[in-house]
């Protein structure tokens, strides 16, 4: 399109360092850079329009995220008013923490163990897969990545229903294992329980692993896309050998993606509700099930809040470690 430069030319911002004049929604004719100028020099002018744009979103985050989270702190120190409702009264009751840690400590440990096992299994599957997609995928790379994501577009509840069929006592997986004569050895390894797959830790971990696989594969592929194949050739030319090529080129360059993937897998896995509830049976419940049960069944909101905060504190440790690296590696579309 050809626009004649007839109308007055908009001057560039005062300082080259400051960002360009932004687009605006409400057409106020005055330039934003003109009303922020103060005696502190050109660097200190800050237009007010961004706050108008930020306000609704910030309101959402403050009222629906920060406020509820912070309100869990006083709630965790309260007592229920009665056994029949969610109303509570503040008592400064620290014993809630002691009680939930005593009652749910083992389940808390189990949750992180399951999450770690599922993530470890996921890494073992995802790393070679990401490698194959990146270096063997060729022009099919986008399609192969799409195929990794596609299953997550079906409800994980539907996938849990399907796993129930697959893992059932007369289901295809156990029949296969029976015909291979693997029942006894797997029972010995603790993979099976009383000859069953359903309602075992294995089922929960399997469900978790397939749920979190995309979160591992995608950041890994993105990280590996930064590995120039020329580097690999160079390593070969220098007779580096497969092992050194891996430890000195591939691993350091793919590690940020792996770290991001592990974090993105551990968090939802540790707090998962669906897989333990529908695949795990009563003996393999995880911490989110306990919170759910405390809150919605036992109506013990204060203890549920205390347990939630404990879970959050534990996860925050992992998050803070990752945040030091920056948020850049969080894979977003």
């Amino acid at each position, binding site marked *: 399109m050809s626009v004649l430069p007839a109308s007055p030319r908009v001057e560039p911002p005062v300082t080259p360092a400051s960002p360009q004049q932004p687009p605006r929604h409400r057409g106020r004719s005055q330039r934003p850079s003109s009303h922020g100028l103060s005696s502190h020099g050109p660097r200190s002018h800050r237009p007010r329009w961004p*706050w108008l744009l930020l306000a609704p979103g910030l309101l959402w985050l403050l009222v629906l995220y920060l406020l509820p989270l912070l309100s869990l702190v006083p709630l965790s120190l309260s007592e229920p008013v009665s056994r029949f409702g969610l109303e509570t009264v503040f008592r400064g009751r620290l014993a809630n923490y002691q009680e939930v840690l005593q009652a749910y400590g083992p389940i808390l440990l189990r949750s992180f163990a399951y999450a770690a096992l599922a993530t470890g299994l996921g890494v073992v599957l995802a790393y070679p897969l990401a490698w194959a997609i990146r270096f063997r995928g060729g022009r099919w790379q986008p399609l192969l990545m799409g195929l990794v994501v596609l299953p997550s577009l079906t409800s994980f509840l539907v996938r849990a229903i399907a796993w129930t069929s697959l893992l059932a006592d007369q289901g295809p997986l156990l029949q296969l294992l029976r015909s291979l004569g693997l029942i006894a050895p797997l029972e010995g390894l603790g993979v099976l329980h009383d000859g069953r797959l359903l309602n075992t830790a294995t089922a929960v971990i399997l469900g978790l692993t397939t749920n979190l696989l995309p979160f591992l594969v995608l950041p890994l592929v993105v990280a590996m896309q930064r590995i120039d194949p020329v580097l690999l050739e160079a390593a070969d030319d220098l007779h580096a050998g497969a092992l050194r090529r891996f430890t000195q080129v591939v691993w350091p360059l793919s590690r940020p993606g792996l770290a991001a993937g592990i974090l993105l897998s551990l968090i939802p896995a540790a707090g998962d509700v669906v897989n333990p509830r*529908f695949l795990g049976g009563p003996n393999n419940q995880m911490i989110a099930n306990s919170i759910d049960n405390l809150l919605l069944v036992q109506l013990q909101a204060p203890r549920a809040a205390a347990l939630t905060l404990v879970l959050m504190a534990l996860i925050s440790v992992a998050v803070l470690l990752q945040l030091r690296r920056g948020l850049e590696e969080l894979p977003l579309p």
Partner: protein
Amino acid sequence: MNRNRLGGLLLGLWSALAYGLLYAPLLVTVLFSFNAPRGRFNLVWQGFTLENWRHPLRDAALSEAFLTSLALALAAALVAILLGALMALALARSSVRGGRWIALLLALPLTNPEIVLATGLLNLFVGLNLPRGPLTLLLSHSLFCLSYAALTLKARLAGFDPSLELAAQDLGAPPLEAFRRVTLPLLVPGLLAAGLLSFSLSFDDYVVSSFTAGETVTLPLYLAGAFQREISPQIQVLSTLVLLASVLLLALASPPRGETRGNSRADNQRHGR
């Protein structure tokens, strides 16, 4: 050379195993939509039938839950991309004091397991005496979608050359015009990606919904109930239809070929839960 071949073969087999784990439940779902079950639970293969497909929406309660989820996900995605786009514009095109803190605040909800958000939101709604139902569902869903939408769009905006907008203004376009004719068209793919992501997050959400829904029944809540009640083949029929629709959407949403880099990021989805 031979060692290379063997390595390639092993890599291929291992990748096939990973894809197999991802696709086994989907295959079973599609297959069982053609099953003629005995009893209430369509979990054991009995025999092939097309009966279930003759009236895909026969199960009234299931269809109603499906429509509720559809409407909720659309509304939540709209709210999320509207608020998210405004935030992204402000963060990417200005140097707001504390902009980094706001970006951090946006990223924080992504680092909480859903159960944490759910507990907090339930406590908030109980405290405000807000009856749980469609409104609380919409508020909750739009919140967890907002972070994804805003951060996605912010990353997209950061990828553009702001001099394009400046050039438009230099050519005499008023800021609003420059926004409408330059920024907005550039932002459309990002808005679509953020919208699709938000939609699928909301459509699939179980944990937050189970705490904030009250009497309202979304599709995941219905499915969770089905484990105790009845797993009718209509569930697999509907899931197959949803799967088909997702394949179509994903195909439409992928940018045209030649944009591999952008594509790889656009394929990124979901936050699991």
